[in-house]
């Protein structure tokens, strides 16, 4: 892999950029791999990257039915933070945040991780109690966070509507200064390039249509490019996980729903941090290009259409205009949807299954972008050792039978 740098840019400019190497190869699938990863989203690619880098397992294929990073990875509002409530979740997300901090250099790919801080607003007394609880838990887990009052929120986001006379006034917020945003596409591409350079085959336009088992063990997958053998198949297919499970007669505690987001036209910088509000349902940050990136809600119904209903967008817009009355004159440029895989406890599943050699990493729902490096990292461990990484262990699928759910609805909410 040729290294990227300011110098390489300069050098290539002299030859009119005619000699850049491809970021990854486009190989034909081999007959057999040590590990097949189904799903070339951020999580699948990160899994491949860490399998190769940390565990030295490079005879790996990532099979992607569309284009790399084209699922929810392409569609999310890119919020990164780790201030989850329960120990299990906050440790997992914080592991990920740690990896984010050096990710650009690790990948030699600028993922534009911008630690501009994340505010989670509280609008009623119970919100504020929950915020206190969560921030205290974070602090004692070594995760940065403070509770802010209205005036302190206003200081960080001067344009916020701090009137106490509105329907749901801002009473305060939690503030994680190390949180922020990253460039979603770059994350997928950076992991892809890194994995490819260590020998991982990234195979696009290759849809897995069946998972083939023999005597309760995986032997490979049927794809649109033929059968590919492997004794380890890892499904990292987000919204499509239920369909994958059905291929081997399994069901998951997951429902796939449309979640929408939208961007405004690009404007000059006006908001320098990430503002999230579960209560009134609005999430906003401003991308480096200048568009306001806004997360809307999930539709209540199951849907694989990558589009949702308009009333969800309307709801978000009124909340946004309430929080930022000047945004009312901004214009929406584009709205889209993803398919989010939500678990009953708003936590992921990183798990072995009852079928030998079949693994699932899914259920990240509305909030898995932030976990991309961490998820790949712990899942690679799970795959390499056929045993859960300690941080992943609590997220086994068994928890739904034992009752050990990790209810992150408060912190994950419908949010990002």
């Amino acid at each position, binding site marked *: 892999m040729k290294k990227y740098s300011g110098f390489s840019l300069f050098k290539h400019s002299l030859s009119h950029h005619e000699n850049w190497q491809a970021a990854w190869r486009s190989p034909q699938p081999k007959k057999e791999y040590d590990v097949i990863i189904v799903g070339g989203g951020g999580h699948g690619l990160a899994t491949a990257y860490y399998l190769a880098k940390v565990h030295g397992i490079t005879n790996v294929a990532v099979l992607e039915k569309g284009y790399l990073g084209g699922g929810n990875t392409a569609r999310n509002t890119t919020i990164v933070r780790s201030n989850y409530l329960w120990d299990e979740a906050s440790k997992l997300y914080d592991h990920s945040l740690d990896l984010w901090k050096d990710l650009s250099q690790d990948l030699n790919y600028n993922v534009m991780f911008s630690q501009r801080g994340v505010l989670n607003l509280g609008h009623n007394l119970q919100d504020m109690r929950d915020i206190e609880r969560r921030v205290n838990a974070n602090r004692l887990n070594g995760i940065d966070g403070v509770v802010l009052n209205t005036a302190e929120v206003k200081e960080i986001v001067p344009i916020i509507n701090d009137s106490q006379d509105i329907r749901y006034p801002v009473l305060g917020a939690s503030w994680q200064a190390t949180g922020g945003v990253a460039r979603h596409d770059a994350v997928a591409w950076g992991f892809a390039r890194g994995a490819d350079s260590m020998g991982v085959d990234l195979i696009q336009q290759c849809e897995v249509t069946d998972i083939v088992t023999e005597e309760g063990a995986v032997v490979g997958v049927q794809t649109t490019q033929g059968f590919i053998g492997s004794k380890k198949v890892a499904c990292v297919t987000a919204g*499509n996980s*239920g*369909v994958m499970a*059905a291929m081997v007669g399994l*069901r*998951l*505690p*997951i*429902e*796939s729903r449309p979640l929408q987001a939208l961007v405004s036209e690009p404007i000059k910088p006006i908001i320098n941090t990430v503002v999230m509000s579960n209560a009134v349902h609005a999430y906003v940050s401003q991308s480096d290009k200048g568009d306001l990136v806004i997360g809307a809600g999930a*539709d*209540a*119904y*199951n*849907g*694989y*259409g990558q589009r949702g*209903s*308009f*009333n969800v967008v309307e709801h978000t817009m009124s909340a946004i205009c309430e929080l930022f009355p000047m945004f009312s004159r901004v214009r929406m440029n584009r709205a889209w949807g993803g398919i989010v895989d939500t678990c*009953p406890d708003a936590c992921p599943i990183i798990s072995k299954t009852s079928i030998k050699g079949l693994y699932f990493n899914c259920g990240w729902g509305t909030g898995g972008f932030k976990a991309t490096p961490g998820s790949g990292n712990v899942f690679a461990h799970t795959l390499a050792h056929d045993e859960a990484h300690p941080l992943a262990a609590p997220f086994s699928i068994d928890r*739904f*039978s*034992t*009752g050990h759910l990790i209810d992150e609805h408060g912190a994950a909410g419908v949010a990002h």
Partner: protein
Amino acid sequence: MHHIYCPYCEEMREEEEYSYTGEAHIERPKDPAAISDEAWANYIFFRSNPRGIHHEMWYHAAGCRRYFNATRDTQSYKVHETYKMGEMPSITAQTLAVANLSEKGGAS
């Protein structure tokens, strides 16, 4: 934006009047104590979540407050039919597959 026929109100109503309440035809185990933890978990948490034909419940929350079932395609969002609680669907993934086959068969 779904537009759904309420089998009780007997007309098409806007999505805003409804709430979606999950997969249909999931029966509560008759004797919960007699089944395993896994079977119980299967009943409360595990869902078929298909891409395509899905039988699901809707609640006409702002209307007649009746729950009813819908057969809907989760990919195209086409609602094939709605039917009352206690009734069985007349359109399923199987019947549609058969219909598709015969359509193709007829053409060839």
